[in-house]
């Protein structure tokens, strides 16, 4: 049960971190003209979106398998 909860929290936790990094990064871009943190935040969010697609595809395949079996 705990494992399932932790596994399902994996992507949302990183998405939250990505949003924080992007927000702080945009502030840094405005104040210090440095793009590194904003880019890093964007990469985290893109990776989360990529992971989400894989997880949704796996869930869909499992549902199809259950319906067919």
């Amino acid at each position: 049960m705990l494992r399932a909860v932790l596994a399902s929290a994996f992507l949302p936790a990183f998405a939250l971190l990505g949003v924080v990094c992007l927000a702080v990064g945009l502030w840094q871009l405005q104040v210090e003209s440095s793009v590194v943190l904003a880019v890093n935040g964007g990469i985290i969010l893109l990776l989360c979106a990529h992971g989400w697609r894989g997880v949704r595809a796996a869930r869909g395949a499992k549902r199809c398998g259950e319906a067919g079996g």
Partner: protein
Amino acid sequence: MIILGLILLGPFVVIAAVLGARFLEWQRLLPAGLPRFTPLCLIASGLLGSLLAGDTLEAFVASPIRLQRHFAGAVYLSPLALQSVERSGFQDPGTTWTYTLDDETLRALRARCKVQRSFPGQPEYCNMGSDFDERYYAGMGISGRATLVIEEGLH
């Protein structure tokens, strides 16, 4: 400075990400269907992002608050009033924070500072305090009409 930090931290971050991803996979703490290298890349960029965000918040929030308390006795300016930050130096790192002051804060700070002589053509500088020794320097003052400058570093 940031690029150098990334190069120096890179190998440690990659090793930590590989070990972290392996551990999560072994403990089955990853959601099913996650593409193979996504957890590794997420952990690596998450670690880097956390380190960079922590460094940025320390430089933009914690350090100026500490220096304002030290030189002015209170925090007069919020981090959102920060206009610019310049960080420089490899061997002698230094940071300069610049704030634009509103009239009320300017009046409050003007009462605590001492005008210094400046060269012709240069903006007036009203000194609020400075610390120097053979390695460290820090200072705070109002430059021109309404710009607060705080600086700290090694020399």
